[in-house]
């Protein structure tokens, strides 16, 4: 939305915004905690409130056509997009494309946690959606693997919903999340925080029953005889985000193997002229305010690219 609005403000008049979900705002809709907008709006907002500012603004601009439930299946290096939506499959060519596809959560599989695969293992974001959107509490005794911001926020959320959070396990010596989240979500609720520890195994047949935790040294190797078990019925995985860039990869954009970000000399740009990437799809940001700022710049760059071609 920020990129589309910025493209309009910089002079573009024929803008199509494709959203695969049935509503605008993406993941902000499930982020009902506060802390959004402090830099961008100089106000403290919740996620849905932050998104709503953009939704109101974008709906007031008739030159931006919003297409919901629209799922892009193909992108070519000539900037042709194929997308499908209920009832039709469409193909459009654009003078410039901005990818604001965000990120997905890294999974348990990406950090190779051994053990079984019972019910009760959730990405922190999925647990957040279950609680905040669906009103369902997935479990009562929770262990959180990784101390990314979503994991920290969810630790507090579970406690507020009446569950017991039995530990947050972080392999590094310090948290990956924001300091304010450690204080407000972990320390204020007396949740055990295990730094330099990792979960070495998940136990349970139908449902998660326990995790095995072990201390690690500076080389991240297991310290002998430091293993202990925490019984729990739910495990959240919060081990970072990874840019969602499979479409631009399909178009031939070179991606960094480790980060899944486009290899680029300049913010928002890719190896394909006229194809821009913004927000968490370009690189993982700590706060949404930075995402919006980056996306506004992408909108301007796209317009400059079109002008340069005319």
């Amino acid at each position, binding site marked *: 939305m920020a990129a589309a609005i910025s493209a309009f403000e910089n002079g573009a008049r024929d803008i199509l915004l494709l959203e695969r979900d049935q509503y605008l705002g993406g993941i902000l809709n499930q982020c009902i905690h506060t802390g959004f907008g402090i830099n961008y709006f100089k106000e403290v907002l919740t996620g849905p409130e932050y998104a709503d500012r953009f939704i109101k603004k974008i709906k007031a601009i008739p030159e931006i056509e919003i297409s919901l439930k629209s*799922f892009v299946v193909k992108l070519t290096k000539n900037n042709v997009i194929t997308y499908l939506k209920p009832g039709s499959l469409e193909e459009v060519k654009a003078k410039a494309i901005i990818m604001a596809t965000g990120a997905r959560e890294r999974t348990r599989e990406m950090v190779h946690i051994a053990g079984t695969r019972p019910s009760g293992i959730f990405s922190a974001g999925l647990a957040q959606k279950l609680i905040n959107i669906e009103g369902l509490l997935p479990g009562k005794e929770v262990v959180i693997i990784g101390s990314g911001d979503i994991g920290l926020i969810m630790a507090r959320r579970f406690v507020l919903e009446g569950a017991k959070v039995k530990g947050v396990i972080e392999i590094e010596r310090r948290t990956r999340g924001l300091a304010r989240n450690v204080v407000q979500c972990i320390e204020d609720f007396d949740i055990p925080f295990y730094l330099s520890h990792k979960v070495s195994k998940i136990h349970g047949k139908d449902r998660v029953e326990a995790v095995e935790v072990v201390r690690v040294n500076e080389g991240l190797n297991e310290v002998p005889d430091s293993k202990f078990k925490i019984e729990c019925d739910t495990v959240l995985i919060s081990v970072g985000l990874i840019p969602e860039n*499979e479409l631009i990869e399909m178009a031939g954009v070179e991606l960094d193997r480790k980060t899944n970000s486009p290899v680029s000399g300049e913010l928002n740009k890719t190896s394909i002229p006229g194809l821009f990437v913004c927000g968490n799809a370009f690189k993982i940001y700590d706060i949404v305010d930075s995402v919006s700022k980056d996306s506004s710049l992408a909108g301007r760059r796209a317009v400059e690219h079109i002008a340069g071609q005319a």
Partner: protein
Amino acid sequence: MNLFDIVIIGGGIVGTSIARELSRYRLSLALLEKESELAFGVSKSNSGIIHPGTQNPVNSLKGRLCVQGNFLIRKIARDLGVDFKEVGELIVAFNEEEASRLVEIKKDAEKLGVPKLKIVGRKWLRIHEPNLSGEAVKALYAPTAGIISPYRMVYDLAENAVANGVEIHTETKVESIVRSNHFEIFTTKGAFKARYIINASGLYADEVSKMAGIDDFKIRPRKGEEFILDKKKEYLTNHLLFPLPSKVSKGFLVIKTSDGNPMIGPTAEDILDKTDLATTDMGFKKVLIAARRLIPSIDENDIIAYFAGLRPVAGDDFIIRHEEKAPGFINVAGIQSPGLTAAPTIALMVVNILKRAGMKLKKKPDFIGKRKKTIHLFAMPLERTRKLIEKDSTYGDMVCRCEMVSIREIRDAIGRGARTLDGIKFRTRAQAGRCHGSFCTTRIMKILSQELKKSLTEVTKRGGASEVIKGERS
């Protein structure tokens, strides 16, 4: 209570293959499965390889059944609308000593009747398998090897069997068997009467056999850990790659699955617990090292999923026989690799055993041999997708973004018997991609809840006590 002609115990590839084959005849048939859905036992972890028949002892039953099965399964797959791809396999030798063993393997396989085998050298390998390690000197090429989706095969066999009158009962665990004039089978869902029993209960075949009074074999689980790579790496290999086989297994393979994702593994570890499906750090390390020996460019960051399966091992060969001491009771046990390939021939063998045991088999004139192919958007060119969406708009309503699965496909899967999140995953691939269901799980839960008229809190991952929402079941 009905008296069935035959009750089949076990709804994996073996049980459903037998059920479908027997459904050609005028018989009353029931299949009992203890899990919530079919293929949830041994079959769910099958790699989907249709073996050519190499790497089997010359005089083995499994070798003979495998070679014929490789031939038969093609028609079955075609009739049922299951994709079969003949990709060929390479057994790779890394030095001259290993290369000389290839000659022996080739000779043995030819005795079994494996067709079109050829030993290929470095130059051939460089052209046809460019990512293979440069250290490979020779390989035995078996062009008739193929791949298939093991679960879709089970589901489509079952669906066709049901169309031909077979009753399928899930969540029906056999607890005891009493024999008088006929068998009485007591289960968690009541009693069943049968004139014949076919025991195809995988890991539990020894326990079920014991209930009928036959206690002369044991099933030992042999664990295999498998690791799946991102579909982006679909073209990592052209063939199924095998190292030289060891005594207990065919070794660590690099293969492609029928859905396009490469897969590496499996380990082979004899264990005691028939429910131990845990993966291990050691298994991961072993598989990665061995897979890189074949394809050095494999990166651990490409691994998006892993699981463990248990092979039901009862000695060196399959046990398929009518038990004279328990007339009417047929054991089909110890069906480990190459069980999927052999399944069509196992079914034919069971038909013959029944005939010899005195069963009168008469073909039905109205047997339905074919079923309509299930639609999967991911396996289809965009032009066909366009036509489908224009005809039925719900094909354009995407649920699973990573694997491109529409709401229509999910509803179809439920209509065809899916009851759990895993059942949806095995049938449609929704939740099987790189995000692991992070984005689509809640939507699938809602679809299940709407279609089955159950509350969201009743939705399970794979039946039993595997509710997604713990302790809120109303």
